[in-house]
Every structure is written in C-alpha cells, then in structure tokens.
C-alpha cells in the first residue's frame, strides 16, 4: 500500500515538473513547483526522512516559494499563459509527457527495472535493503555531520547564496 502511494506520488512529481518546464507564466510555474515539492517531500517521508521532508516544506515551500509567489504576483501580466491557453505550451507539455513515457518504456525494456504491482506480499512492511543502521536515524546523523565535519561546506554554500543575492541586487540596480 505504501509503495503504491510512493509510486503515485512519483508519477505526479514527474508530471508537475514537466508542467513547470513547459514554460507557462511564472505563477503557474510556481504552482507546478508547489505540487512537485510536496510530492518530493512525500517520497522523502516514505523513506524515513521525516525531518528533511518537514524542513523542505517549511523552508522551500513555506519560505522561498512564498517569496517567489509574491514577486511573481507583483510582476504578472493581465492574461497569464496557462498550460491550455497557448498551443505552444500545451504542445511542450504533451511532448514532455510522451518523452517521459517513452523513457519509462525504454527502462522497462532493458529488463533491469520492473514495476512491482503486487503489494500484498508483506503489506506495509516492505524491507528496504539499506544496510544496518542500528538505533539512530541516518538522516539526522547526516544533518549533525553537516555542522560538525562539514563546516567548510556550510561556509561555501552560505557564501555562494549570499553572493547570489548580491549579484542579483547589482544586476537589477540599473545605474
């Protein structure tokens, strides 16, 4: 049952990502990002990464995407392009879906990957072969390691985010 939900979520994830990349107006792109972000969080939840999923909901969807939504709403036009209002966007969306479907068929034809449709084997207790992890959860240990062993990574990513903001401000200054 759980794998079925994960399967459905990953399908919706791919469809909404294709919807974002078929270039509608930014408001609708933001909608696609919200749906894909939520589905991605769901997939992360199902693998036991509850902290990271909630972090993504909070920071990505509740922080960055909200700011993006407000700025897109300030800069929007009178009749924004949706997926069905313009043949170009619809064609891009549909061709993206077709290509994704063909890729799924290609991967299945190679016989390395197959769909699991019998979910009645062990019910919810599907065993993931991820190796021994003992008593601690690896994702929280990973976040702790980021701030202890990975200090340099925090410094570099923090600096590059800061420089991103500085670069945007300098470019849009205009004089």
């Amino acid at each position, binding site marked *: 049952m759980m794998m079925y939900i994960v399967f459905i979520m990953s399908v919706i994830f791919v469809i909404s990502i294709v919807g974002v990349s078929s270039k509608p107006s930014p408001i609708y792109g933001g909608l696609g990002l919200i749906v894909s972000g939520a589905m991605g969080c769901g997939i992360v939840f199902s693998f036991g990464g509850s902290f990271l999923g909630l972090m993504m909901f909070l920071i990505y969807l509740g922080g960055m995407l909200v700011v993006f939504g407000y700025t897109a709403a300030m800069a929007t036009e009178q009749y924004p392009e949706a997926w069905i209002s313009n043949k170009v966007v619809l064609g891009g969306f549909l061709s993206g879906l077709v290509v994704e479907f063909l890729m799924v068929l290609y991967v299945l034809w190679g016989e390395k990957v197959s769909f699991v449709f019998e979910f009645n084997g062990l019910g919810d207790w599907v065993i993931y072969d991820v190796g021994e992890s003992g008593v601690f959860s690896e994702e929280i240990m990973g976040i702790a390691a980021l701030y202890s062993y990975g200090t340099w*990574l925090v410094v*570099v*990513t923090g*600096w*590059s985010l800061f*420089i*991103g903001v*500085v*670069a945007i401000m*300098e*470019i849009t*200054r*205009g*004089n």
Partner: protein
Amino acid sequence: MNPFISIMLLSTLILSTMIVTISSHWLFAWIGLEMNMMAIIPIMMKKPTPRATEASTKYFLTQATASALLMLAIIINLMYSSQWTIMKLFNPTASILMTMALAIKLGLAPFHFWVPEVTQGIPLTTGLILLTWQKLAPISILYQISPSINLHLMVTMSFLSILIGGWGGLNQTQLRKIMAYSSIAHMGWMTTILLYNPSLTMLNLLIYIIMTFTMFTLLAQNSTTTTLLLSQTWNTMPIMTTFTMLTLLSMGGLPPLTGFMPKWMIIQELTKNESLLLPTLMAITALLNLYFYMRLAYSTALTLFPSTNNMKMKWQFYPTKQMTLLPTAIVLSTMLLPLTPMFFILL
C-alpha cells in the same frame, strides 16, 4: 560599482576558481563553477547598457546549461562508481557528457558561438577576466578526468576550434571579437594535447594567459576596441606599436617569440604519438590566425595611418593610465623561448 561590492565579487571570483582546482569532491567542484558564474555576471554588467545585458544573458544561459550537463555526468559517474572523488570517470556516457559540458564552458567548437558575442558586449578588462581567469577552472577539471576522455570527441572538437577560431577571426575589425576567436583557437590547441600529455595543456594555458594579458593591457592603454583606433597608436605612444606587433606575432606562434613554444611542444608530442596528419593540419590552420594578427600588426606598426593634426601631438603628454605589469608581461610574452628547458619542471 560600490567598491565594497566590487571587492566581494572579485574575491568570490578568485575563491570559486580555487575551490574548483583544490577540491576532491565532485559536488564541490560543481559548486565552485556555479559561484564562478554568479560572481562574474555583475562584473560583466558594470555599465548596464543593453549590450552588456545581452552579453551577460548569453553567458548565463550557456554556462548554466553546461553546469546542468556537468551535474548529470557527475550523477551518472556516481551511479557507476558509487564514489564522489574527482578522478577519471567510470562510464563512457558520463565521460562524453562531462567533456561536452566543459567544452561549452571553455568555448570549444561546436559550442563556440557565445564567445565572440559575449566578449564584444563587455568592457576590455572584463573581457580579459573572461578569456583568461575563467578558463582555469574547466581546464583543471579536464586535466583531472583526462585518462577517461573519448579521444575522437576531443580531437574533433579541438581541431574544429582551431579551424573556426582561425576562419571566424578573418572578417572582424572589432578587437574584442578578434581576441575571442583567438581564444577559441588557443583552446583548440590546448585540448588537442590533453589526452597525450596534459602537462603541455598547462604549459599552453600559462603562455596563452600571459600573451592574452599583454594584449588586453596594451589595448586597454588607449581603450582601443577597433582596428581603426589601433591604427592611431603611433600618435599616442609609438613604443606601443612595437610591443603590439611583437605580442601579436607571438600569439601567432612565430619563432623566436614565446608563442612558438607551446605549438612546437604540442606538435612534437603529437608526432611522438604517431599522428602525423593532425599536427600538419593544425599547423596549416594556425596560419589563418597568423593572417589576421599580421593584419593588425600591419595597421598598427608597419604603416602610419593618416590622422588629423591635433592627434599628432598626443605623444607629447605623459600617459595617465597605470600600466600594471605591462613591461613584465611584454618581456614574458616575447622572450621566453630560450627558457623552454625550464618547463621540464611541469612534468
């Protein structure tokens, strides 16, 4: 630009290239390349004209695509080798994708179309940073993955670069576009020898950076951006005409100037590896490069172009622009050939 912001952006530019060259984790190398791109975009837009905006947009689009392809190649490599160390790649697909991503970043043919247009839209000193400093990071990654690069792809791209760099520069009068095509051709020479002897790639990169720095500093002295303005150099600083001519001939690869050294070494390495047709064709197509350098030298030093009478007295004034490192650079880019055995230390 606010000097505080300018210092931050330039130091991020330096930091990002250092991160790419010293990191051993693929993710860090990718982060370094992204920081590099983000830091140079506002430097390119110092004067926010539509020309500079267009150049920055084109640069951003091509480099972002290349970064995405690089990330894809890194992940495919992760899938097949389960480790993130920067070493040779373990899958031909990852290798081909990464080679093409780095070729887009360097401006190798057939991904060279952005180089002349971006170089033309930005000021001269920013063009200098674009054509010299920005080449260090991708070449350091190419050096590290060189055992696994597909030979046919690399040699095809580099020979096409030499050809297009030579041919494309023939019809140009704008000096920044000429320098861009010269950069494409030199990148072609550099990446030809990458699979046979990567130390020579480093040697060629070093000599190319010295010569391009000299050329751009000479051009920035009088803010000359067209051949017409270059032909007036004899009015302002007659000694510059000699230096410009010597540097241009050195870039064309004529002995006894420095620029002959990398070409000579590369041809020698290629013939040692029993490929004879390729160095012959490379040497022949380098003549196209030499032709348009000679044309610039002709209009600068070998003829005195007519000018108005009040231009003729400009040599009487002291130059006010600071000629940073120019004498050193000129000596390095013309007189280094007898020191060729010194570069044995690169091996």
